[in-house]
């Protein structure tokens, strides 16, 4: 393999790494929440919003993931599971905490056995607000964390009545 690397350097052939490809893989970790944010992320995969057209792909293996999406209320079992999943992800895999319960524990912060948000377990890169987080803000977050930014949250054009 080393000879191939040498040839590549001499003739400056753009290696596979430099190709900019629009395909990001998302791994969805759901704490034992009220299933609201979980249903909203699945709504993103369903025909209503369909993030597959934007190049995102849902995967079941954390080592493939570009983005680790954490939703729902985190308690003891979720903490063990989250740490185990986080250790399998790649070093430059970004973490997005979607929903008020995943960001700061929301309404149930301070309850017995409830962790106040995902940042008390793993380092989080982006927080998304909203109780039952809206699919628009999930798409905003995914687009922003993978580098292609959008018109964040500001309504464009006419607002429907």
């Amino acid at each position, binding site marked *: 393999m080393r000879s191939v690397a040498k040839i590549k350097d001499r003739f400056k052939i753009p290696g596979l790494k430099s190709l900019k490809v629009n395909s990001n893989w998302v791994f969805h970790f759901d704490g*034992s*929440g*009220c*299933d*609201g*944010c979980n*249903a*909203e992320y*699945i*709504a993103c995969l*369903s*025909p*209503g919003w369909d993030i597959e057209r934007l190049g995102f792909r849902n995967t079941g293996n954390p080592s493939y993931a570009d983005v680790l999406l954490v939703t729902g*209320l985190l*308690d003891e079992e979720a903490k063990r599971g989250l740490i185990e999943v986080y250790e399998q992800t790649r070093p430059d895999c970004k973490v997005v905490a979607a929903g008020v319960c995943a960001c700061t524990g929301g*309404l*149930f912060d*301070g*309850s*017995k*056995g*409830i962790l106040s948000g995902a940042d008390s377990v793993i380092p989080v890169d982006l927080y998304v607000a909203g*109780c*039952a987080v*809206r699919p628009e803000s999930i798409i905003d977050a995914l687009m922003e964390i993978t580098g292609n930014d959008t018109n964040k949250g500001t309504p464009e054009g006419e607002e429907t*009545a």
Partner: protein
Amino acid sequence: MNKSMFETTEYTSRFLQLSEVKDYRQLVYAAERMYGTGGFGNSVAMCTALEGAAEVVIPEKAQYIRTILMELSMMQENLLRLAAIAETLNFDSLSMMCWTEREKILEILDDLTGNRMILSMCVPGGVRKSLDPEILEESLDELNVVMQKAETIKGIIAEDSMVKRRLRGVGVLAKEAAQGSSVTGPGAKGSGVDIDRRMLGEYGAYRNLDFVPVTETGGDCLARCMVKIREVIQSGELIRKAVENMPEGSIRSEMPAGINGEWIAKIEQPDGVDTFYISGSGSAFLDEIGVRTAGESNQKIMDRLENVTLENEALIRLTLGIDSCLKER
């Protein structure tokens, strides 16, 4: 109302612990987040219990608004269950069809109340704000589109030979077994037992909307799925009736500072009947809260079903709506 009736039910430890820190007004928001997709029903249950304990009668218009929003939230939850069932059968196109219909109903809820699933519209003593009449008219013809699509989905579930082969005769529950047990919702309606909390008219404007609960006689998974899709169509008609004869008037009545007394409220949810028991002794912080969700009461029926194999077990739990509600909040 002796307390021993509730010794068997398992209190929600965290819900009870929350009630020490939050007064009854804030607890309605916690009740709403017991299971997010069908949250509005739980907030109506909690508010009915609070109003009952404080002997407060809420205005008629608030009852109508609650009925409309409850039927809309039941429609989207039933469609979510059907999408999950079609997912288990690997029937992706039917599952995606249910998701698109659910998306349309969520848009209506978003226009009416500002939020998609957890509406925070129901407050003790009535409703937070009244529904905008023009948006209500627009959403009615949007509902017609959803109702037609629900008819095609019903046709697919009823006649598709492969779906019938996978669903018929699976997890059969006889009518006598259903009557004798604590199963409610599609589990009971699927086997011909027509119990429906909405008929008693304790909450909402169901007294003036005459309707017959949906029942099927098969008793198996196919009958339960048919009950779910026929309930979606029935909710559409109920909403149209409620919108037509919605009275005018105030939407909220005064609630006392503290709750003195106890009350049980039972609300019909897409998976069954949710029971809320509250008791307070004059202060804003309640003493006793008991919650028995639909999933729990349906759980005890699993050993009375026939023809349950390892392969279909996940399917049966979905049609009965057993593991839909995670109570440990």
